[in-house]
């Protein structure tokens, strides 16, 4: 690892992140809010610190290697959340650093877990910043920088791999920068369309933009305490369901669809088919469960609408709510927890284990079992008719094990801090999977504000692990990566 090189590149990143803080500043001015000072101060700190860091190490000429890339991605995210927390502190919206950092990390990692009990008292600038951090984090801040910054070096491919979710990372184009641009362009395009649709439907422009940022990124921050349910509009819910569904699918499929102008890519992809099938099956199961065993007076159409929204919201790891699913029968609640763990598709903006990993784990289980009674058989694990290499299978299995291990360890820690089991394990599921709301005392109507300080830091770590898909962060715990 080359410390000077990392400092120099991080300097660039911080400078750019500092610049993004000018956007909420511009946002708050027309509304005549006082928060612009907080944003200006934060932006200054970001750009000056970044600029200084870059300037002091500008003579470093080395190219980014594999180790540097991993460290850069991890530190880039930790640093971004640090900068992102400043406006909350300077504006006085949150009074301690832990809460501010939690809120910012929850934003960038598109988790959507909040410590703010009443979001309606926040200024529009802050509400926009909260949603905007999710928009930045959704497609990936590092990928964004790759897309817009001038030439970063040959290590750029490693940076890309460190951040983009999924077990197999293919570029869509020969150059990573082109790929990053293509991804961000699609992302931007969908955002514009969604914001337009919401505004046309009668949503206030400010709220439409905030919700758009939080939807396409599968983030889940809302401008209302009741989340999307606060609007009570079927049209808004339909638009948001559609965009969440798109955001939870692999963006390279969207790219293929757009470049070939055919929907065939979706149907040929087994991950997409499974993703859609799970959404449909669980929606029907929960609707049935709610109708048969749910609260009195609930009607089938209402149940279908609530179940559909919650299922898509939870599986894509967005975390918007229209109903308090914590009041649902336990079968429905646990189904939602299962969806939290599964998460969206590889190459999407969603979190969780990812559908494709689940498919690989399941297929591998079949192959291994098959070999037991037919030892001479040679069976390759195939995905979309192409064999998956044994290294990939092994990595996916390991990912699965580490995920479970982290899950158990973090849940135990939460229990140690005095949380009840349901709250503790669902809080970990909701942060490790970047969803947001959990069950019990962190359910859709509650916040994370009451969780003790150390608990918040553990959950922050969970969010980071979840967003960067474990390995990028875990690498930092292996001593030899730190050697020069």
């Amino acid at each position, binding site marked *: 690892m080359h410390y000077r090189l990392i400092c120099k590149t991080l300097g660039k990143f911080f400078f750019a992140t500092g610049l993004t803080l000018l956007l909420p500043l511009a946002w708050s001015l027309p509304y005549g809010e006082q928060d612009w000072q907080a944003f200006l101060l934060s932006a200054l700190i970001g750009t000056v610190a970044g600029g200084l860091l870059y300037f002091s190490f500008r003579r470093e000429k080395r190219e980014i290697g594999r180790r540097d890339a991993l460290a850069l991605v991890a530190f880039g995210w930790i640093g971004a959340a640090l900068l992102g927390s400043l406006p909350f502190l300077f504006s006085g919206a949150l009074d301690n650093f832990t809460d501010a950092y939690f809120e910012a990390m929850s934003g960038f990692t598109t988790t959507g877990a909040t410590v703010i009990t009443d979001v309606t008292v926040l200024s529009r600038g802050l509400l926009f910043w909260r949603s905007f951090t999710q928009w930045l984090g959704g497609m990936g801040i590092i990928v964004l920088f790759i897309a817009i910054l001038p030439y970063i070096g040959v290590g750029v491919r490693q940076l890309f791999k460190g951040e983009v979710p999924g077990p197999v990372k293919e570029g869509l184009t020969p150059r990573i920068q082109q790929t990053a641009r293509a991804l961000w362009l699609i992302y931007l395009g969908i955002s514009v369309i969604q914001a337009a649709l919401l505004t046309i439907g009668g949503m206030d422009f400010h709220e439409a933009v905030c919700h758009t940022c939080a939807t396409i990124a599968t983030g889940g921050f809302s401008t209302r305490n009741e989340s999307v349910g606060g609007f009570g509009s079927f049209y808004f819910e339909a638009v948001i369901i559609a965009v969440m569904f798109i955001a939870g699918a692999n963006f390279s499929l969207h790219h293929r669809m757009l470049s070939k102008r055919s929907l065939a890519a979706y149907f040929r992809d087994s991950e997409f088919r499974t993703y859609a099938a799970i959404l449909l099956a669980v929606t029907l199961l929960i609707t049935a469960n709610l109708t048969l065993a749910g609260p009195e007076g609930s009607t089938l159409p209402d149940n279908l609408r609530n179940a559909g929204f919650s299922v898509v919201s939870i599986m894509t790891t967005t975390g918007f709510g229209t109903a308090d699913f914590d009041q649902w029968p336990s079968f429905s609640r646990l189904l939602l927890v299962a969806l939290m763990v599964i998460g969206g598709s590889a190459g999407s903006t969603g979190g969780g284990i990812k559908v494709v990993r689940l498919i690989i784990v399941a297929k591998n289980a079949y192959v291994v079992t098959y070999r037991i009674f*037919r030892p*001479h*058989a*040679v*069976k*390759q694990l*195939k995905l979309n008719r*192409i*064999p998956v290499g044994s290294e990939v299978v092994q990595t996916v299995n390991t990912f699965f094990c580490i995920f479970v291990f982290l899950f158990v360890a973090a849940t135990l820690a939460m229990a140690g801090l005095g949380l009840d089991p349901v709250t503790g394990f669902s809080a970990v599921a909701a942060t490790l999977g970047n969803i947001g709301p959990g069950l019990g005392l962190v359910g859709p109507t509650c916040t994370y504000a009451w969780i003790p300080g150390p608990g918040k830091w553990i959950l922050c770590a969970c969010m980071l692990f979840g967003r960067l898909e474990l390995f990028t962060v875990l690498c930092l715990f292996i001593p030899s990566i730190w050697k020069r």
Partner: protein
Amino acid sequence: MATTAIVGAGMVGLSLAERLANGKMNVIVVDLSPEALGQVGDRLDLQTIQGHGADPRIIETLKASGTDLLIAVTDSNEVNMISALTAKQVGIKRTVARIRNEVYLQGTRMIYRDLLGIDLVISPWIVTAMKIANTISTRGSAEVESFANGKIRLLHFPVTSECPLVHRRLSNIPTPGFLITGIRREGEMIVPGGDDELSPGDMVWVVAIAGQENRVLKLFAAPREDAKRVFIVGGGQVGLLLAQTLEKRNISVRILEQDRARCEELSAVLSSKTAVLHGSGTDLNLLKEEHAGRMDVFAAVTSEHESNIVSALLARRLGAAKTICLSNRSDYMQLIQDLGIDMAFNPRLLTASAIQQFLHRGSLISMEILEDGKAEILEIMADLSAKAVGRKLKNLGLPKGSIIGAMNKKDGVIVPGGDDTIEAGDTVVVFTVPENIPEIQRIF
């Protein structure tokens, strides 16, 4: 008189040289090895040239001595290709190259013929695999032949009284994806028109697009007894092609291969329904464990021909219904039959026959004689120079007693109607009475 050059005095080269020289044709054999040439020269009345098959000077010499056909059958794919290409460039009219590497066979006939100028690219593995595949499915006598690399199939089956199409005029029977090309009734062969009807007791020949066979047989309610389970020993190119062909016909396949890495390749290419097994074909316990004895067909197609014989014998002892083995030794053929193995195939002889067929027929790719010569089915490639090119079928002037059953066009196989046009590079499958053959050759 026409002179043919054969590059490569291996088994295929020798076998061809023998057939051609005895057929009163001038033959020149080119080979690197003086010993090999010496043996040929002693046995046959032909000229020999010692040298590299792709040496431009040698090819020019060949051209100068009046060669109008060059057949490249050395052990090297690349030498064969370059030799054929060079020959074409210096003006030798027709060229044939034997290609064994599957990568080169991914190209279409168009690429080799029209762009590179090799008139026939022949793969012993494809020839052999197709031949074996055909015998496997003729068990129920439902499928007789395939054309256009297996994309077009000829079916042959009886019409029973249960057939729902009986006593209907053919023009009233919708036939998407297939065509009734021949009816044999009371010893007479009829090439039917729209006014003919089917009656119970007829035997029909139907040309169908591959993949439609089951639908056709169902439509006619034809009785069918097909191989359902096939065991293949050897995952080389023949084994792989055979497995792929059988998979497409929904036959359950087990394929046994000795090399672990090759097993993984096979499993990557083959469907997940096919069981790829790692082990030796002469391992009796393994064969028992995998129920080799309960198979409808057991085919040993490794490159070790003696092991093939042993495998097939083991399978026969275990009870396999039909055993097939591959052998390059023509002197073993009788022995293999004496041992009770049902069929033996020799890739080299099959290749030589296929090349010879090509030579005799010009643009004819293949030809099969049906029912003791009462009908023939031809697969013809429409040259750029063919008269038929650019004309609609109804204007073709095809004589009565002949019918075009299917065409393999650039974008897929079709069962043509009168308004379809023949384009250069198309392959047509013609069902005909033998008397019409000269007339058909004139048209194409």
